[in-house]
């Protein structure tokens, strides 16, 4: 019970201190709009193509919303030594890191639904499978956040966190099947696609919105969950090895 008081307090502080700041809220709104606009301009198509564009914009919004913020905030607090204060608290490291990442998960998930709200206003989305879409967004947010945590634990400077984030993010966007079908990729790149968590998240989003999936949904969910667990476990191990030296 006492540990949960700490959990909620860390989450509330991070939401107030980082995620609910006006620049981040505007980033959360502008970023998906900019991506949507970019696709409309590039393809020259109208609002009838929204269902085709929506999975990609949602996934990118989650990916950037989570990794940018978490990698920076954790690195910032570690460098300023305020993170030591959290490590000194009598709460399990697992719960502490869940508290630190929960804000990014909430922020990233909220980012994903900005383009959905826009799409609902502009067009009909009658075929959307919300029961798959909502958990998929949550799992993409969790896996992306834990990727951000993995990055944050691996670097010591804020600028390194940004650079290292891009090292993962940009290849992931183009290899996960969101904008280019995996079948159209060179054969030697395809195995790499299946080593990325976003590939499975993108497949669920496509299935939920357009009804087309490459893999069974159960497999997609299982792979996403496995990536979440794996990235979190690796991050915890790295924290124990490099921060509690």
């Amino acid at each position, binding site marked *: *019970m*006492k*540990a949960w*008081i*700490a959990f*909620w*307090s*860390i989450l509330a*502080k991070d939401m107030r*201190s980082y995620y609910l700041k006006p620049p981040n809220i505007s980033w959360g709104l502008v970023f998906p709009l900019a991506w949507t606009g970019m696709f409309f301009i590039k393809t020259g198509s109208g609002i009838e193509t929204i269902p085709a564009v929506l999975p990609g914009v949602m996934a990118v919004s989650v990916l950037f919303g989570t990794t940018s913020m978490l990698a920076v905030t954790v690195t910032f607090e570690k460098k*300023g*030594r*305020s993170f*030591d*204060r*959290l*490590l*000194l*608290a*009598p*709460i*399990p490291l697992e719960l502490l890191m869940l508290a630190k990442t929960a804000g990014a998960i909430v922020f990233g998930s909220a980012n994903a639904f900005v383009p959905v709200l826009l799409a609902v206003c502009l067009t009909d989305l009658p075929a959307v499978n919300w029961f798959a879409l909502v958990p998929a967004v949550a799992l993409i947010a969790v896996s992306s956040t834990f990727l951000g945590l993995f990055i944050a634990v691996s670097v010591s400077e804020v600028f390194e966190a940004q650079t290292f984030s891009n090292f993962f993010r940009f290849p992931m966007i183009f290899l996960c099947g969101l904008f280019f079908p995996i079948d159209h990729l060179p054969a030697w790149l395809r195995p790499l696609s299946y080593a990325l968590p976003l590939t499975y998240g993108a497949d669920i989003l496509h299935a939920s919105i357009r009804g087309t999936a490459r893999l069974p949904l159960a497999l997609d969910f299982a792979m996403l969950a496995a990536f979440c667990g794996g990235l979190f476990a690796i991050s915890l191990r790295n924290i124990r090895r490099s921060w*509690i*030296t």
Partner: protein
Amino acid sequence: MTSPIIEVRGLAKRFDDVQAVADVSFVVRKGELFGFLGPNGAGKTTTINMLTGLTRPDAGSITIAGIDCRKNPKAAQGLVGVVPDESNLYGELTGLGNLTFCGSLYGLGRAERQARAEELLDRFGLAPAGGRKFAGYSKGMKRKLTIAAGIIHSPPILFLDEPTTGIDVASARQVRQLVADLHAAGTTIFLTTHYIEEAERLCERIAFLVEGRVVRIDPVDELMRQADRRHVVAIHVDARAGRLGDELARAFEDIDVEAVGDESLHVTSSSPVRVGPLVRFLEDHGAEVAEARKLRPSLEDVFVRITGIEAAAMKREKDKGGGKGPRA
């Protein structure tokens, strides 16, 4: 004699090529104010980090209130408060916000942490600034709030790492008084400092740490008794101290004379020194004596004798903020 509350045996830690702490052993008794004194890089902060669970020891054992800290560090962390050598609270939070947040980390409920935070702000003279952001506090205010954050959960044991470094004289005096009050209220305090006079004034027992090794642990009273066995007279003369010192040493038996700068002599002896004959000798040899006084023996003398490290050099090095090892 009260029971041990912190027991450390054979503690060791190496960072790459640097042996930061080597075979350190000591016991701190319940309610004691224990000083850990040493120069920059001696291993004081590394030791605190190992005691509080921020650094993993390479060897040795740590027991806090009967809890094996290497096996169960989180259980021990609930019993201790930690005030690091640099204020590490959240700049974007207010003073009150920082304290309530720190209270929540130790499981204090909303009403309890709010009341405790307000009580501490009042006690530390920070109530008027409680609604201001921490980033805007002066160094002294930051230090006091950091100490308040360390005791928000009323821990029975408090680790204080260099609590008065880098703050003004008035704030340092206030911090020392707060430490003394906490000790008087029964808190066990583990204090690291490089200010020898601070350790002398506050601590009951002191460990001298040099290059990662404890070279001496004794009650302050016992250390001072050793210093009392030496008698020192400081004499201010004109600018020929060196030459006059040599003549003085030849003329009187059982004294050592050291020229301190160009215009001062320190006469040391194992037996009481009479000032009059020294002054007369110097005046007879043409010196103009401006002042001659017996120096009160200090812990600094003992420290210098035991460690061979000049206390003034140690303080200068620290105030420059020079060369710390990894978390040391």
